[in-house]
């Protein structure tokens, strides 16, 4: 979402970067795109990055615009409790993705075994999951803004708000490789500068943020755009410093199996540090 604002406001052009955005369903697939060299930067969830790092892949989180988990467990209207999902098909985008981690976290928290008590189906993405749920092919899937609002408009129910469970997450995480940073640190830094300007513009210019996001997401519903803005503006960080705790929670959840990767290995704070040290972030907020 923030890159969309930054692009619409021409902050990347201002930094001398032409960005081509490609949508890929499911965070595991876009990690593959990064490691395969199809993309130089990705925006994905850390549940996809942790297993990649466990396998020795060169992935690193550089920034995030929000640290409060923004997930909801969306279910079909007949589901009143997590335990009602026993014996039913439930959706995730792809195995190992954020939606996989969140769903397993919820099922385990309410005493269900994700490997035995439900059948997990890959839907490919949140929109596809919503279509599958609407058609009765799955009974639950993790969704974020604005999909969970759209789902409720379509008659689905919000069963869990994960921010209430103390979950942290690197929302909109900007991820690249250490080798790309080594080769083109200036490019990554300029992308991050545009990203920070996008964060500030989102929070300070509501109408521009709503208009830009609505255009990108093809949403005309004013209530949906307003709710989306309210949710993210209230949690928007001033400096896009990633959360180590959020990564640790993913590792500790056990949903990705045994992980022996230190969360610190997955984060490079040096670029955010540089923007803070040089006064760039303060300067943006004074503009």
């Amino acid at each position, binding site marked *: 979402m923030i890159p969309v604002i930054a692009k619409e406001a021409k902050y990347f052009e201002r930094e001398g970067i*032409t960005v081509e955005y490609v949508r890929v369903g499911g965070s595991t697939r876009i990690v593959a795109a990064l490691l395969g060299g199809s993309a130089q930067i990705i925006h994905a969830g850390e549940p996809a990055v942790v297993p990649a790092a466990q396998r020795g892949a060169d992935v690193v989180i550089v920034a995030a615009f929000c640290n409060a988990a923004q997930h909801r467990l969306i279910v079909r209207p007949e589901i009143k409790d997590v335990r009602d999902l026993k014996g039913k098909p439930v959706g995730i985008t792809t195995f190992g993705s954020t939606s996989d981690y969140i769903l397993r976290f919820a099922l385990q928290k309410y005493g269900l075994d994700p490997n035995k008590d439900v059948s997990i189906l890959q839907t490919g993405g949140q929109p596809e999951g919503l279509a599958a749920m609407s058609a009765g092919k799955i009974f639950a899937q993790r969704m974020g803004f604005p999909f969970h609002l759209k789902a409720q408009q379509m008659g689905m129910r919000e069963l869990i708000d994960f921010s209430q469970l103390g979950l942290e997450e690197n929302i909109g995480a900007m991820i690249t490789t250490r080798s790309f940073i080594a080769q083109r640190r200036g490019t990554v830094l300029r992308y991050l500068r545009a990203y920070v300007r996008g964060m500030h513009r989102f929070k300070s210019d509501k109408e521009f943020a709503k208009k830009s996001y609505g255009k990108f997401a093809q949403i005309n519903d004013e209530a949906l755009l307003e709710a989306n803005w309210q949710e993210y503006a209230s949690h928007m960080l001033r400096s896009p410093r990633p959360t180590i705790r959020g990564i640790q929670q993913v590792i500790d959840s056990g949903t990705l199996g045994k992980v022996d990767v230190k969360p610190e290995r997955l984060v490079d704070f040096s670029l955010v540090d540089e923007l803070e040290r040089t006064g760039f972030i303060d300067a943006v907020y004074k503009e």
Partner: protein
Amino acid sequence: MKTAFCALICFLSASILLDKELIAQERITVCFTQAPPEAG
């Protein structure tokens, strides 16, 4: 006539500079997962 000629030279110079500016832009590909709710 002289003024028109100067204006033309200025315009051409600006165009060349603009082209150089565009060529100097770095291109990167960025992937993300989010998609419009209607997309599926």
